[in-house]
């Protein structure tokens, strides 16, 4: 997927922003914070995971999503989010 396709979705950007802030979250909680339904959230998470940006762990019935620690793309996005937040606070 091209970079413009990944970032073309407002929901995906919001997911990345949330995870950059809190570290990791389960799908329902991400959906609640986005104020969209579970299915939509799940779809976007899958796209970000397929791109290697996110990864998840399964604990019983839940999946916890976080940035993929081994991905350069993930690192770059986290840096971008951090720099953006920092600049906005100034």
């Amino acid at each position: 997927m091209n970079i413009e396709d990944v970032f073309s979705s407002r929901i995906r950007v919001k997911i990345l922003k949330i995870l950059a802030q809190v570290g990791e979250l389960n799908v329902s909680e991400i959906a609640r914070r986005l104020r969209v339904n579970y299915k939509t959230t799940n779809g976007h998470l899958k796209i970000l995971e397929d791109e290697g940006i996110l990864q998840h762990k399964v604990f019983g019935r839940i999946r916890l999503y976080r940035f993929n620690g081994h991905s350069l793309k993930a690192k770059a996005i986290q840096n971008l989010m951090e720099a953006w937040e920092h600049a906005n606070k100034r």
Partner: protein
Amino acid sequence: MTQYRSVFKDETKLDINYIPYRLPHRDKELRLLMEFFSFASLAPEKMAQRIMITGDVGTGKTVLSQRFGADITREANRRGISLRYVHVNCREYRGSLFLILYHIISIFHPNFPRRGYSAEELLRILLQILDEENTYIILTLDEFESLVEREGSEAVYKLTRLQEIRPNKPQRLSLICILRSLKIIEQLDASTRSTLQSNIISLEKYLKQQLETILNDRVLLAFKPLTVLEDTVSLTADLAFSEGGNARFGIELLWRSGKYADADNSDVVTPECVRKAVSSIYAVMRKNDLAFLSLHEKLFLLGVARFFRGSQRAYAALTEAEQAYAVVCEESDVQPRSHTQLWKYLQTLSTLGILQKKVSTTGSRGRSTLIYLPRITAYELEKELSILLEKGGA
């Protein structure tokens, strides 16, 4: 503007959560704990341990286990073993196994969802996390009584028999249960009891001299040099001893006394500061107790109060109290009572808890009786007695 002065060098050293490097009079128990858990820094996967630590309030159960936790973790990590010490106060989590397990999981995954799980599922998830991260835990369940009272045998059984549902896997979880007495264990069923009661460390109440060592250690850490009088420490130790050998009480009293010294802008923490601190902890002595005393009991007590007001001492010898009483009698124009009679007054006042006495064996002249004020300041006592005597109330 006056400059703020303080007798404290670092008052956090008197905080309930401070873990000192040195644990006076608990070194034997600390070594024993290290022995019980020697496997944890060598081959932690091979076994899990279960220990019970019992003892009254203020006997050092919590600090012993926290000191041990810090030491064993450092030792294991030095050897490349991922070991964590987790200290949980069961009462804080209302004795709920679910809340306790949730707390432990949230150490690893801070945003782990709170709802939708049973305690069994959380236990399984915890083991999964520990397996994935190749980590071992020593879990201390402080105020273990709360867990037993709320959850009964079932919860304890689950925690102690974890390995039975996962044979041939590394043993991840060891337990230290802290409780005041073993009586509560009788509530557990026989099989659960048998998993727990093999290793018990019982902490005896601290003796007065031991309390003095502990308090002196903390004085060195928390106060500026020469700001705490020897008598102040001794009186604090006496009071902590009368509270069932409660070191925590003594340490808190020391802190409070320091605060009173600061509030009075004093460079020294005197025994009067300790008495002020004590009277702020206990409900102040009932004035009724004073009102019902006889005239000479009041006069004797007034003499004692004046003696302490005029000195920085914590203890008065009976002869010194007698002299102060004689002066008070002269002022009031009454004939002083005999030594034997004063001794009886002292017994009465001691029974009422207004005065305390102890026998001193130090010095070259054998045994002598020392008097101290356990829960009221000399200033307050003198004020109350003066009001009563003015009213003519014998």
